[in-house]
């Protein structure tokens, strides 16, 4: 499998998009840290960029990469290599290159300017989100042979997780505001990896004091060791489930 991943990685590095992505992340991180006197504020701005940009780039890049490597996949299919292996090495190659971009582009500035538990959680969350959204992108692209449709589905999913979901949650909270919703909001946040990441990092910062009773409850839960384990566990589930579904439909497909 590693043998195949090596070729995938090689192919991705040659495309240079990944290098541009690294440089972009690095430029944003450095300039944010330079502009703000208070590194905490810079991390907060960085957080918002990470939560929007990382899922978007991971999804679009992975989808395009999947369709572009159709030839490679076709070539491998007639060789004695199993389909599961082919897809997983594609996934590993893509996710590893995207996450190393992120580690270099955001990880290095964070280590230089803001090396503490919040900074580390930010980098960890970004990496996990990369793996999650690459996995979601593979799931959607395996379903359809049409590139336009695949990219459309990836974008729709991104819109859903990054924008629409928050609106829905607000709607629910607003409609049922007369009831105790603390437990429910906790559950709702698990249904969206982006939200989960946001809460996880925000609670590491001092601003959670501004969030009232719910914030206090969140802090109680997510601030603890169990909370951190829970977050990582749910995120791993978000990564593994779509990937397994993708492998399953890839194995049954005519290619």
């Amino acid at each position, binding site marked *: 499998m590693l*043998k195949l991943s090596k070729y995938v990685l090689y192919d991705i590095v040659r495309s240079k998009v990944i290098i541009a992505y690294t440089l972009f992340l690095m430029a944003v991180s450095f300039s944010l840290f330079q502009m703000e006197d208070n590194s905490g504020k810079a991390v907060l701005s960085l957080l918002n960029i990470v939560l929007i940009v990382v899922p978007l780039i991971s999804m679009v890049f992975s989808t395009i990469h999947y369709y572009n490597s159709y030839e*490679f996949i076709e070539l491998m299919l007639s060789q*004695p290599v199993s389909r599961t292996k082919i897809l997983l090495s594609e996934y590993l190659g893509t996710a590893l290159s995207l996450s190393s971009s992120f580690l270099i582009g955001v990880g290095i500035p964070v280590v230089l300017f803001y090396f503490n538990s919040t900074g580390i959680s930010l980098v960890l969350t970004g990496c996990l989100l990369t793996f999650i959204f690459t996995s979601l992108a593979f799931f959607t692209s395996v379903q359809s042979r049409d590139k336009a449709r695949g990219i459309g589905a990836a974008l729709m999913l991104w819109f859903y997780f990054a924008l629409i979901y928050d609106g829905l949650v607000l709607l629910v909270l607003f409609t049922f505001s007369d009831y105790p919703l603390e437990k429910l909001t906790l559950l709702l946040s698990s249904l969206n990896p982006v939200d989960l990441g946001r809460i996880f990092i925000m609670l590491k910062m001092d601003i959670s004091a501004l969030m009232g009773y719910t914030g206090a409850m969140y802090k109680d839960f997510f601030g603890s060791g169990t909370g951190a384990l829970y977050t990582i566990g749910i995120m791993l589930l978000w990564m593994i489930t779509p990937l397994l579904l993708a492998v399953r439909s890839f194995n049954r497909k*005519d290619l």
Partner: protein
Amino acid sequence: MITIKNLHKKFKKLHALNDVSASFSRGQVVSLIGPNGSGKTTLIKSILGIVKPDAGSILFAGKSIDKQVAYRDNIGYMPQIGRYPDNMKIGQVIEMVKNIRNHKDGTLDDELFFDFKMDEMQDKNMRSLSGGTRQKVSAVLAFLFNPDVLILDEPTAGLDPLASEILKDKIIKEKKKGKLILITSHVLSDLDELTTDVMYLQDGKLHLYQTVENIKQQTGETRLEKAIAQVMKRYLKDGTATIPMTENREADYAKAI
């Protein structure tokens, strides 16, 4: 070597394979012929596991190929349209496939590689290759690992006469080694000197599977092209093939060896 039992495959409404059963053994060169869209490539892709049949089974050396991978070690496949990663060079593609196939004894068959002068074009980008050169790369890869079974989908389409001759000579050589070779082609004159058996598919149905001698004998023609044309004409008239299909000959072969 390969046994196909009651294979069915539908693509939406199109019945690409309709109850196809056949058996291929060592030493045979089987020509798969039939009009466009008659299911030839689907049959080949099913054998390779690229297309998953709806019903029926395929056995390779007695074992079902379903969910198997290792059997492909014994197959060299030359696709109809060879598609390769655009940003790789010829040499890299060949190296990659070598690296991925766990070839044991290290005896690679690089005859075609040199006959097609691939050593001089190793640094050419796959993107810039003409259709014919791509075909050559496909052919090199199919023969490179000295497989027991060769599956060639329209091997000579797009090749210049010289390359086509080289490839045909190579096929004859491999035939003499007792390999099983499956060829699809529309150029019947190309097949005449190679083939031992003819398989005729139409609308996903297997209509005829016969040795060449039988066909020639029964139609009274000496050239394969004419003989096949005769069979097809009769088929169109009666709706059935007048020549009976060959039976499973694997047992006969086992006896002969």
